[in-house]
């Protein structure tokens, strides 16, 4: 197990567009193992992207199995050259980031997405994700484009009133 140091903002590597992975080789496999270990050791982390450990390539982990409460998920995913191909709906959620300690904020994300990515062997995969898992994927893929959740913050007071009443008295 090898943990890599987390790159913290304002390090400029976090604001850099990453390059596609072209070689699916042992080096990639070693890196992904480190990335998985680093994600698993991050406090409450459900995902991580390669630039967060300083490698400017389009690789990320999406792991909704680590959510505090169980959510619909595809397991622990290693996504290489991921690309979101469709977006549907939107939702506000609270996000934090390993690279931005001690801060959380509200971010609007698509509720459902379709995603294409390579696996670690270069096979093309596609996913339909929703809710929490879709949020993780959008956050991590943003990292590959040099975008932080800080770039997408909405006001803490913003409240879309898209919820079910706590009491069954809605009319």
């Amino acid at each position, binding site marked *: 197990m090898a943990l890599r140091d987390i790159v913290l903002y304002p390090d400029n590597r976090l604001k850099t567009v990453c390059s596609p992975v072209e070689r699916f080789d042992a080096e990639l496999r070693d890196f992904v193992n480190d990335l998985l270990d680093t994600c698993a050791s*991050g*406090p*409450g*982390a*459900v*995902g*991580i*992207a390669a630039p967060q450990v300083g490698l400017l390539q389009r690789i990320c982990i999406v792991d909704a199995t680590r*959510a*505090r*409460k169980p959510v619909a998920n595809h397991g622990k995913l290693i996504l290489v050259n991921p690309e979101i191909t469709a977006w549907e709906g939107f939702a506000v*959620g*609270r*996000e*934090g*980031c*390993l690279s931005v300690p*001690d*801060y*959380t904020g509200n971010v609007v994300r698509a509720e459902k997405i379709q995603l294409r990515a390579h696996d670690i062997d270069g096979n093309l995969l596609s996913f339909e994700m929703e809710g*929490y898992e879709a*949020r*993780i994927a959008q*956050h*991590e893929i943003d*990292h590959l484009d040099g975008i932080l959740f800080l770039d997408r913050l909405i006001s*803490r*007071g913003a*409240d879309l*009133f898209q*919820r*079910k*009443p*706590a*009491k069954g*008295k*809605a009319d």
Partner: protein
Amino acid sequence: MNNHHWKLLTLVGPDRPGIVAAVSRVLLGAGAELGEASMMRLGGLFTIMLMVGLEGDGVHLKGLLESVRNEYKLRVHVDELNAGLHRRIEPDARITVYGADRTGIVFEVTDALAQAGLSITDLRSDVAGSEDKPIYIMSIEGVAQQGFAALEQALGNIPGDMRVTLEPIELMRG
């Protein structure tokens, strides 16, 4: 960072453009560090609570602000507290309440939440609607120290004229 003593500065006065800039200009000139702050317009007034890191005591800080206080007709209050940065706690529950305005809403809701173990981290409220038919809107975030089910149960007892929503804040950290 610095060996500053953090103070909590509260300013209230008639709202007009430029107050924050005027205050922060003075504080910058005095070598102060600014921390967490919350400014809101309440009842048409400018209000701000601001963490200021500065050597010297509260009297010194008030002295620095004297000309700004005078120019902007501000009330100035300084608390010297054992405060510091990086002491945030993450809320895990959000409650929204709204309905026709009447007395007692805040007490009924917050008393129920307190008894169910909610530690409030953020509370905002507004009176909206028309002047003759005002509606009260309140948004609360907090830490559910006795779990979510206790909050659900407590909110079930709020009088039926109030619409109450409770939802978890599921933090996503990646």
